[in-house]
């Protein structure tokens, strides 16, 4: 479940944890890779991805029950 952080790229700036509306990153500390404490509470708003200053340091994975049905 989302989000997924790339440890090697994350600078621990804390922006994702500060901006996340659902506080998925509850308990995170500045200068450390954020803790993904409540992944099931992600609303997929993309605030963390949009506001992260490092390209590709954070991404979201779509959970299987949320896959679109299409033809």
């Amino acid at each position, binding site marked *: 479940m989302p989000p997924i952080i790339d440890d090697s790229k994350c600078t621990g700036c804390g922006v994702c944890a500060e901006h996340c509306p659902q506080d998925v990153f509850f308990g995170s500390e500045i200068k450390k890779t954020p803790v993904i404490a409540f992944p099931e509470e992600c609303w997929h708003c993309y605030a963390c991805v949009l506001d992260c200053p490092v390209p590709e340091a954070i991404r979201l994975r779509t959970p299987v029950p949320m896959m679109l*049905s299409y033809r």
Partner: protein
Amino acid sequence: MTHIIMAGEQMEADVLVIGGGPAGLMAAIHAAESGAKVTLIDKANTVRSGSGATGNDHFRAYIPAFHGPDMEPVVKEVAKSQAGWTRPQSFVRTWMKTSFDIVKMWDDWGIPMKHEGRWEFSGHTFPGKPFTTLKYSGQSQKPILTKEAKKRGVKIVNRVTAFDLITDHGISGAIGVHGREDKIITFSAKAVVLCTGGCVRLYPGPTPGWMFNRADSPHTTGDGRAMAYRAGADLLNMEIPMRWAGPKYFAKCGKATWVGVLRDPRDKPVGPFVTKPDRIYGDPISDSYKGLFEDYMKTGKGPVYMDCRGISNEDYDYMMHYMKHEGLHGILHHFDEEGIDLRENPIEFMTYEMTTRGGIHYNEKGETSMPGLYAAGDEYFGGISAAATFGWIAGGKAAGFAFGRDAPSKNAGKESSEALKNLVREMRNRKDGPSWQEINVALNQVMSDYIGPTRSDTLVEAGTAHLLRIKEKARKDLVAKNQHELIHCLEVLNLLDVAEVIFAAIKERKETREKYIRVDHPYKNPAFDEKVLVCRKGPEGPLTEWKAIND
């Protein structure tokens, strides 16, 4: 386990704004511009909180340069729309009259309100009818409005959830709980503006057992409605249901951003309005018939697809641009993950769960039934433009009210702050008992089984009894392992209060009208024409009263 003691803190302002979405930020901006000392508290962070977190792309507006000098056709059309049909026409007129000023402000502040340098209206429009939704690029609306509020001296306090209004000697502020620290904050104020958004998480969402797959932000949980109700303010039209529709399984509002034709599995359009993708109209059939997707499934004719095949290259680029601005980033990313191409793949749509259309009774000045208490935005459903417009209006009025009164006494709120402190301390220190999820799921169950699409006297009676038992258990037994869970516990208590009001309102409205259906009263009762149903707190639970529409 360490014993949790809640620390106390005091803050003062002339105007306290609760909730930092477009309504709350506009209220704070206007109140501060009027010279008031303003504090705004947000459950999350105003930069990305609420249903408009990462964008919106439609803004109901009357633009003289586009519509011409006569505003009335636009007023009439908005009054018939999903955002206006339960509102008095005078309310819609004030909204449209003010909307252009708001559009100009937003454009000046850097929220692009024009498309390629011109006013562009598209979506939510029936061929031959007046255009009412201005297309705009709102991805950065929240950071921009936050910056404008700060520029005017608004004190923003993030990660604090207000739970109760202070009502000693009139509205005197609110008590909030910190979402990250064991702390209760008493906000003393001369006027309060409630802007906490909608009422998500009342009914079960599209995915069984999942709480957060929602068309609107799942952290908007009717906090304002519940607070206003507990303080004694009037709620209105709580029994009127509202449903959204959108892509199946990946719940997100923004239907009007899709440029396609809604078709059945044999490619036959399900509505009469469009036969090929057209960016100006989208497919408005689902504006007048939201239950369409569910009905097609129930009758075996479905599913219904949003079919963008045949879209022009220009319209495709247009749609993809605005999907970002409507905040549909998750869906766009999913297209990449799965290799979905809207030019080739029709996407199944569905009707999402219910919520209430009604909410806090606020008039065109943003005034509620209690002096000093104002409300705006989705405290009563209206969408982004109503939020921005009435937020602005309510902020100005609240500042005016604040100038005319003295600061609340130093002791105001002491009692309610102690009561809340005890409640949360118990939840934080209790060892065994239901989690917030347990109570929320129990609530979802009772909502969908007893006051879902099928509503009747006997169902309401049985459901109310069950709901009250859940509520009692929640107040007595809820367990919060940390501050994050504590906020969810408070949200669930708010949802339970809102639910009780909805049950009471449904019990009272014994008729079928527009989208409100009572299977045991399948006719319109003319006695309720031109009337609205008001609910307020009584000694034994919600009281109901019929009022003339313009009262």
